[in-house]
């Protein structure tokens, strides 16, 4: 037997699928800011925020929107080593595969980039940039200095990563975009819009203000945490719906279930 909560649960599977993107006031502002920064003659743009604030999905969205009229590339997972990264970069810049057993000569690559100045404008979106070593970051900086390649560097915001930002980009980054956790209103809109996008009107309406306050309290407005919590909430609802239907009500989400999900995920403790 399939429960109607199954569909609701699947809405909150954490992904950076562009189809799942929800336009909110804050994310719209960040998007517009990033888009306008890309248009400016900047070498590097720093996009930072706590994990789960929507950095990856924002980079994804900008790539999807601009790829038709701009040379834009999204490097989602960080390269394991320098060799792999420059192979990737070589492919993007030269539009050719690097022959087997060959390595990229960095100086030659930098010269190649200098030659591209005024001919091509390449934007590279580097996600999870905190994973790159400082040597690699230094080389990325040198390539950005050629002005033919613009890097949008996405970083997690922690004290250490702030240091990275200071050391490597302080003198070069001219635009910093910070993504923050959602407000209660934004989080409410996010959850409702996500459910409504899949036509789950009744379930969206069952989440009342008191539920939202509790969800917000647990997740502190973090989208990833919110997805995790909502997934668990609907997983519990799904179980009850199938096995003990008297314990769920379609028109109302009990705070008991939210608290149970909170306990399961460790937001609250016994």
């Amino acid at each position: 037997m399939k429960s109607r909560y199954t569909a609701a649960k699947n809405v909150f599977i954490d992904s950076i699928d562009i189809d799942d993107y929800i336009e909110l006031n804050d994310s719209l502002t960040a998007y517009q800011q990033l888009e306008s920064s890309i248009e400016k003659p900047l070498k590097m743009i720093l996009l930072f925020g706590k994990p789960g604030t929507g950095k990856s999905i924002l980079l994804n969205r900008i790539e999807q929107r601009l790829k038709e009229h701009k040379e834009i590339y999204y490097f989602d997972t960080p390269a394991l080593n320098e060799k792999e990264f420059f192979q990737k970069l070589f492919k993007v810049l030269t539009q050719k595969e690097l022959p087997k057993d060959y390595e990229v000569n960095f100086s030659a690559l930098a010269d190649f980039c200098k030659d591209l100045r005024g001919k091509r404008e390449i934007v590279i979106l580097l996600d999870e940039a905190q994973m790159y070593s400082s040597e690699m970051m230094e080389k990325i900086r040198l390539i950005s200095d050629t002005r033919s390649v613009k890097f949008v560097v996405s970083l997690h915001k922690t004290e250490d990563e702030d240091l990275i930002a200071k050391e490597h980009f302080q003198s070069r980054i001219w635009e910093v975009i910070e993504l923050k956790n959602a407000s209660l209103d934004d989080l409410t809109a996010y959850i409702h819009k996500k459910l409504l996008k899949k036509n789950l009107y009744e379930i969206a309406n069952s989440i009342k203000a008191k539920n939202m306050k509790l969800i917000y309290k647990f997740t502190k407005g973090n989208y990833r945490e919110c997805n995790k919590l909502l997934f668990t909430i609907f997983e519990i609802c799904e179980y009850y719906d199938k096995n003990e239907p008297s314990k769920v009500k379609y028109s109302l989400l009990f705070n008991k279930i939210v608290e149970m999900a909170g306990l399961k995920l460790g937001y609250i403790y016994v």
Partner: protein
Amino acid sequence: MFDIKPLENEWKIYKKKQRYPWYKRSIIFILFVILLFNYKINFSLIQNFLYTFIEDNAIQKLKDNNESVFLINPSLFILQIKKNTFVTPKESINISRNFISIPLLDNKNNKVNLVNSLEKKQSKKLHIEMTESGNIYLYKDIEKRFLETHDVDDALFLAKHYYENHKYKKSEYWALQTNKIDERIEESLFIFVKSKIKLGKKNEGIAILMSYLKNTNSAKAKKILYKIKKNKL
């Protein structure tokens, strides 16, 4: 899907723990209220003492000035202090030093009676306040006080209180004490009889009431006898 039962149990423990501070706060609040009531009663005792002290002083002062006066309505004086407002009494003739005085009524007995009745009034007022508080220690205090003063009002008050609170052994005892001091107080006899009935000594209660009826023909006693016989007490 995970097993939901352990999660449900965990939630129950969580809720219990979450409510615990509320229980604690409620208990503290109740204790605070009880303490506050106690304090209030003690405060009223102090107040009563203070009023009597002020009145005695005032009377003494007037005596020292060779003015022969008595208080028409001493409670007005208390009222003035209590509410911190000055009330002009309707019965006033002359107002002097906050006292209502009528010169040359040199009746010492009358004066003493009035002072005594004032004390009695205060004592009764104290009983009313204690009834409101519902504090058992205060009844113990009255019992102790009775041992010293043998005040019939105290004994009757205790008899009534214990009867109303279904403590019939105690109400029987205090009704008897009242009757020992003043056998004319009909109410003490009725409480005594009613307590007997409540304690299951119906025949004994009826016999006492019948013998009382022979001597007095009291209508109230007849009414109680009727209620006892109809088991409507």
